[in-house]
């Protein structure tokens, strides 16, 4: 009896202490965008769900200005009858001007607030996010925030873009010898798309990588399973192997090859005591899906030659990519991190590595194997 009465008293006394937040009284923010304003201020755009019995329109977009991310939420709270909460934020977009000043101060709240999902996606936008997050969606997504989230999620799972969650960003930021990357969003005819990849020096946005180059970066970053790739080979490269009956106009111009289900393994070998020299071994086993010219694939020789050409082309692209990294003094691949794993003394620090990036020499060795090419005749 004592127990039962104690429980009931506790239940009654303590139940009042917990703030209730019934879902129908909330404005549940799913995406946030930040734009730069003059001075220290920033403009925030909130995409949120709020549920009213009278309307089937569940998505709302609110804009407000403040100094901090939480300030934006408080400010926006004045503009809606629902209580704004941030426990369902799955996407944060930063305007490129804002990102180039360093993202860490905006991520502070994410690491501090337990209600913030650490697996939320981060991204950069080259148009003001107040425009980006008001873009139309023609697809079957509940709101623009969800749409962009799915867009990024899809490109990550399909190995078209590196991981872009808060956790990976912070990990890459804090690790020595590796720089984070984030997807770069843009608008085209009122439609949001992934334009490329934003490169970061520590937490500062410094440049972009084109859509095509992302795959070569991915090849260096991790082992792939399902990636796909289009390669342009020079006109003369496969001349000898065209089918005899092919007409001349068919053999003109450069040759395009499409490979998919790229199963790649990357091995980066640093040299002991020399942080400027690396050896990269790239093995790819893949399937040939499409060739733009009538190449005689029934011959073993042709396949071998094709593999050689693809290897050459990939090698070329990868070294060009590394050259670009050197110029921008960024290291999204994590060469410095690899070096630090094999050495105990004279480890790289963040500053020393940044200075050494332009001196880096990378020896690339690609091995491509075309496992299947389908029946052509």
């Amino acid at each position, binding site marked *: 009896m004592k127990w039962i009465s104690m429980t009931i008293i506790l*239940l009654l006394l*303590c*139940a009042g202490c*917990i703030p*209730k*937040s*019934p*879902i*129908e009284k*909330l404005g*549940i923010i*799913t995406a946030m965008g930040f734009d730069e304003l003059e001075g220290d201020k920033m403009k925030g755009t909130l995409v949120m*769900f*709020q*549920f*009213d*019995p009278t309307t*089937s329109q*569940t998505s709302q977009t609110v804009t407000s200005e403040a100094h901090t991310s939480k300030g934006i939420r408080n400010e926006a709270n004045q503009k809606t009858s629902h209580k704004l*909460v941030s*426990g*369902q934020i*799955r996407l944060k977009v930063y305007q490129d001007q804002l990102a180039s000043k360093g993202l860490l101060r905006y991520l502070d709240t994410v690491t501090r607030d337990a*209600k913030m*999902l650490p697996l939320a996606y981060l991204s950069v936008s080259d148009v003001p996010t107040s425009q980006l997050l008001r873009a139309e969606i023609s697809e079957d997504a*509940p709101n623009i925030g*969800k749409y962009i*989230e799915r867009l990024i999620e899809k490109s990550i799972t399909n190995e078209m873009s590196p991981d872009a969650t808060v956790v990976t960003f912070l990990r890459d930021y804090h690790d020595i010898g590796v720089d984070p990357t984030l997807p770069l969003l843009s608008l085209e005819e009122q439609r949001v798309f992934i334009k490329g990849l934003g490169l970061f020096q520590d937490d500062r946005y410094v440049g972009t990588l084109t859509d095509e180059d992302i795959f070569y970066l991915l090849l260096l970053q991790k082992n792939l399973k399902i990636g796909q790739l289009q390669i342009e080979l020079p006109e003369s490269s496969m001349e000898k192997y065209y089918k005899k009956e092919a007409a001349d106009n068919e053999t003109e111009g450069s040759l395009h090859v499409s490979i998919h289900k790229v199963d790649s393994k990357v091995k980066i070998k640093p040299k002991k005591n020399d942080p400027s020299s690396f050896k990269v071994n790239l093995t790819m086993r893949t399937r040939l899906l499409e060739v733009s010219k009538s190449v005689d694939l029934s011959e073993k020789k042709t396949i071998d030659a094709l593999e050689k050409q693809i290897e050459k082309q990939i090698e070329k692209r990868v070294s060009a990519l590394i050259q670009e990294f050197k110029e921008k003094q960024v290291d999204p691949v994590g060469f410095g991190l690899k070096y630090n794993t094999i050495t105990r003394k004279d480890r790289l620090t963040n500053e020393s590595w940044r200075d050494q990036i332009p001196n880096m020499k990378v020896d690339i060795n690609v091995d491509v194997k075309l496992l299947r090419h389908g029946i052509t005749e």
Partner: protein
Amino acid sequence: MEFKLPMTTKVYIDALNQKFNQSPDLIHKVFDIKGQSIVIHFISYQIKKERLDREILEPLTSSRKPWSVNDLQNRIPLASSKAETNLEEIAGQIIHGSVAVYIEGEKEVITYLLADQEQRSLERAETESLVFGPQVSFTESLITNLNVVRWRLDTDDLVMKKLIVGERIPTEVRIVYLKSLTNEENVETITQRIEDLVVDEIEDTSVLSQLIEDSSSTVFPQLIATELPDRFCHSLMKGRVGVMVDKSPTVLIGPVSLFSFFESTEDLYMRWNMGTFMRLLRILAMMLSIILTPMYVAALTYHYEVIPGSLLVSLGQSRATVPFPPVLEALLLETLIELLREAGARLPTKVGQTMGIVGGIVLGQAAVKAGFTSNILIIIIALSALASFTAPSYLMGTAIRVIRFPMIILAGAWGLIGIAFALCFLVLHLLKLSSLGRPYLAPVYPLSIKDFSDSIIRLPFNKNPKRPTSTMPKDPDRFDENKAKQKKDVNPS
């Protein structure tokens, strides 16, 4: 007035009439045979009249010699004849369907048992019906039930200990077990508990079960009440003790664990993988049934963060029209389901079906349309109600449905913390429970991985040579493990 034989027929008749409170049912007939006065007493609807005529009255009246008690015993030799001198005994015999014959001047009354009891024959099981397997169920008659058990377990190893319980209405209780198998401790526990009972009457097995259970305050039953002879006998073969009560169609099995309530004999009749699937399904259903509605309440009142993104919109939209907080909404709907179930159970079968349609379709649809509840909650409540009916034991199903209510209230007051509290309390409570002194949560606690093979899952019979150890059987082996592996096919060559 003292009743002492011999006496005159008139006094004798008066004495019996008085004993029976001048009951109109007590019939006496006085025969005058060769100057000798013979009285027979019986209750008309308790005896088989044809047998009375044929087997007693005919020889009695056709005799040429005068009768004595010895003559009666010798010349009307029925198996059930008994000589009585005590009025209590005579009255008792007549109540149970005997015919009492008194020859004037003799010192004893001879009774013949010609009982004719109204009883139903063996029928299909109703509350624990099986799709596949033996269909017969116990009846209200103890004799029939004993007969069925003897028929299934035809061994002299079977002990059926007889006890009489009830001060005012004595009822026969049988303790049934296999002597070479069952631990005496279990038998003694249950015998002692039944012997110690001082009650007026045992209405039914379930009443006896409540009287002798280890804990009477809990919602969980600690003895299985079943109406299936195959389940009863299978339990005996596991080293458990059975209790049968006269006038009750259910029998008790103990000691049992929580998981026994989710076992059905059907699992044995199906192949082992299907049996395992069914058992796991039932345990999962129990958990879902307990957790689902409280989770809904907690998530929608406090933890909007845990709602999956893809569910958020549909949940929010359906909640927006509901005027009550989620706790009230859930309690309301749970009560509605309980009302439907109760009404369905009380109504005659034909009306009961209409009830289901009215409740399920009309009320559910209308409630959502009227903005009374969200349709997601309807699905959740229906699911958890359905899940609670999968328990093969009706008592356990009811227990599961009942513990949902405090959990919903706790979830409404404290959110997920409340649910965690409730679950902790539940687990502690289950740990504390025992069945005839044996742990209730076996084989999970105390942990015995080997016992899993025939409780939570079911292994193939040849892989399962041991009896469960939680009942401490005298003989732990069903068969020799090594012999089971040999398959000696007859070689044609």
